[in-house]
């Protein structure tokens, strides 16, 4: 079974600054996907970024980038130029590449962007 750990229950950052959210995972799989989801107060789950385990290059989506360290089983999210709209819960999630392709989520990090 897979586990995903987010050790930062809450974080705060000033607007326009950079913040990094941490995530570690445990799996015996070699092929898998990792994700960061954003959940604003509206409750909607929004996919922020995804990383394929077979790709060494870190994924980037505009102001969002990841630091994927496969050997260390670490998958952190960096948000650059933080905006007030980034205030949300952020969940790290894991998906196997075979069989049941459900998501395994971490417990989440609540990010507050301060003006």
């Amino acid at each position, binding site marked *: 079974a897979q586990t995903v750990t*987010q050790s930062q229950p809450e974080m705060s950052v000033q607007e326009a600054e950079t913040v990094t959210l941490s995530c570690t995972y445990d799996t015996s799989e070699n092929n898998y996907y990792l994700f960061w989801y954003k959940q604003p107060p509206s409750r*909607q*789950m929004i996919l922020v970024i995804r990383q394929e385990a077979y790709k060494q290059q870190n994924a980037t989506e505009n102001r969002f980038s990841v630091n994927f360290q496969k050997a260390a089983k670490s998958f952190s999210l960096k948000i650059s130029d933080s905006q007030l709209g980034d205030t949300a819960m952020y969940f790290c999630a894991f998906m196997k590449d075979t069989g049941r*392709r459900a*998501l*395994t*989520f971490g*417990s*989440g990090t609540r990010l507050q962007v301060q003006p």
Partner: protein
Amino acid sequence: IAGITQAPTSQILAAGRRMTLRCTQDMRHNAMYWYRQDLGLGLRLIHYSNTAGTTGKGEVPDGYSVSRANTDDFPLTLASAVPSQTSVYFCASSKGTASSYNEQFFGPGTRLTVL
């Protein structure tokens, strides 16, 4: 607009009552999932269905049942609700093809309170 709908948006339910949460998608996705979200625990998989006519158990299936009579609908039933089933419930779907990555799309969620 294509997507996933869930009903009801929220519900307060007396313990011992039967309740069915509805989920419908119009994207012709093969795979569907039910997750529950609890504070400090992230989202956990309750049941899933890889294709119409098949279902499987997730991490926390006890007290819940599902059916998948057709591609579009995936109802979740609580046969006799208990207070520990107070949670936010999310339905999700994906194409479910085996050969490539399939993004999961989430519904807006149902907030259920069992008293």
